[in-house]
């Protein structure tokens, strides 16, 4: 790189710099720390960009500007990263007296966008898309949709494919959109319609839970529908109890031990095991098999 002053020529990141920054954005959370969260990740991703934009003596200062507190959702961070690269280019091309102003704009964009994007990403990816993809895979396993030897491969691959299409699509689209729009990226994001997608996917999740509920009790379905209904009602009552407990912030680990304790209790309680309506809970032969078979 020639040691020209930044204002004399138009400095560009170039395709290689952008691609390198995009790959490095996968490491956004590597040095997650309790003081400034993802700050190192952002600075690390911007290294190839800053190398191309600034002469050697200005790079250290530019890098240090990006070590302030930063925390967002790792996937949605690519929107910010793309926009920051665009704005760094503008800063590198701006005349000396406007550079300070540009730096403040970059910081304002990062600080202003990280909170809302984190909320969107948490809601969309962690609380909607991943549970849906996971639930789909789990339902396929538990309802024994496929042949036994095939699904060991197909189900995990289906899970990875369905999730990563959305994941990598968002990362790539966010990065490109951020780079194209710069500080206007916020306005363009309104058109994505995440909220509608969230509601749709959640409806689908609820439907899948319904399939799961019916088919965990499936064994009796083929034989005695009356028995099946009684057991289903009991199952749904327990499900409601668990939902209430989870709603009261009791952790899944605690509820796991509670469920095991409850199962042991049922086996040591002679009156319960003698109840004619609920033999399925205590006698293994009447139990639906969720598919754990000896290999």
């Amino acid at each position, binding site marked *: 790189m020639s040691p020209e002053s930044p204002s004399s020529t138009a400095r560009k990141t170039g395709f290689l710099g952008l691609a390198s920054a995009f790959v490095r954005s996968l490491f956004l959370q*590597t040095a997650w720390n309790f003081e400034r969260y993802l700050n190192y990740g952002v600075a690390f991703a911007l290294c190839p960009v800053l190398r191309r934009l600034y002469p050697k003596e200005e790079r250290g200062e530019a890098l240090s500007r990006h070590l302030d507190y930063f925390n967002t959702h790792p996937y949605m961070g690519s929107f910010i990263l793309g926009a920051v690269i665009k704005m760094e280019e503008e800063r590198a091309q701006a005349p000396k007296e406007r550079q300070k102003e540009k730096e403040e704009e970059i910081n304002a964009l990062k600080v202003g966008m990280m909170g809302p994007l984190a909320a969107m990403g948490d809601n969309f990816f962690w609380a909607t898309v991943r549970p849906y993809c996971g639930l789909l895979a789990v339902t396929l396993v538990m309802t024994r949709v496929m042949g036994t030897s095939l699904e060991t491969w197909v189900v995990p691959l289906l899970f990875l494919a369905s999730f990563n299409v959305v994941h990598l699509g968002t990362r790539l689209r966010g990065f490109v959109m951020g780079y194209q729009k710069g500080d206007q990226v916020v306005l363009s994001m309104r058109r994505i*319609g995440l909220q509608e997608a969230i509601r749709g996917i959640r409806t689908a999740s*609820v439907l899948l839970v319904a399939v799961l509920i019916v088919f965990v009790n499936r064994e009796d379905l083929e034989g005695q529908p009356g028995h099946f209904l009684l057991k289903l009602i009991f199952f749904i009552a327990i499900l409601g109890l668990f939902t209430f407990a989870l709603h009261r912030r009791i952790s899944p680990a605690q509820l796991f031990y509670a469920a095991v304790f409850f199962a042991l209790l049922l086996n040591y309680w002679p009156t319960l095991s003698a109840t004619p309506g609920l033999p399925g809970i205590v006698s293994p032969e009447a139990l639906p098999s*969720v598919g754990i078979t000896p290999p």
Partner: protein
Amino acid sequence: MPYWLPLSLLLGLLSLDVTAIGQFMVSRPIVVGPLVGLVTGHPELGLTLGALTELLWIADVPVGSHLPMDLCMLSGISVAFASELVGRGADPAAAATYALGISIPLALLSTEAELGLRKFHVRWMHFAQRMALGNHFKTFEGVNTAVLLELFLKGCLMAFLGLTVAHATANLYFLLPSPVVKGLRDAALWLLPALGGAAVIDLVLEKRMALTLFLSMALILGLALLGHLQSAELVGLAVLSGFGTILLMAGKGETS
């Protein structure tokens, strides 16, 4: 356990996916379970136990500064341990519950280790800041590699420790009286799926969707009972109607 070392390395590598690299979700139980099962020779047990673990912790998400349970370690250790028990003649469902129960504290330990390292990373970050100010780009970027190596070693160590401790409790399982074994079996086949379903409902259900749940359950139930539809058809139906809803909603969002 014969596969200790390769399993520790595999779990160390996969655990990087949890936060450090990319989050491609290869560290989720539904993937780790069958992978570890493949190594230990019980892929089906791995898949089923992985699916159960995935379902139980489906709502445990990293929102805010909450660090969820280390599911990579949990499923890795529990599947390896359950495979060992099944290999020695244990009932698969009961062994799955037992292995999960033993592995939960070990996974919590791994989560604590992760928390400790994140406090330690503050030092790495300050070192990196000094390097940035001093214009040492190469050293600055080297911090990333160093942290990755550190996290990989943590994963391997935690997996090795977990496998060792779990293995030590293997004989205890075979001392359990038969009603206890039956109870563990019941839990795996019936109560734990209920807990998993509750986790999903707690995560996704909004008040106005309660009606949808009831109607769709009635629909699925009706189709299963009266229409004699099989699971494949019902799952397909659920997925298709889900996609339909998404397209409908997304279409509305695009035009409004």
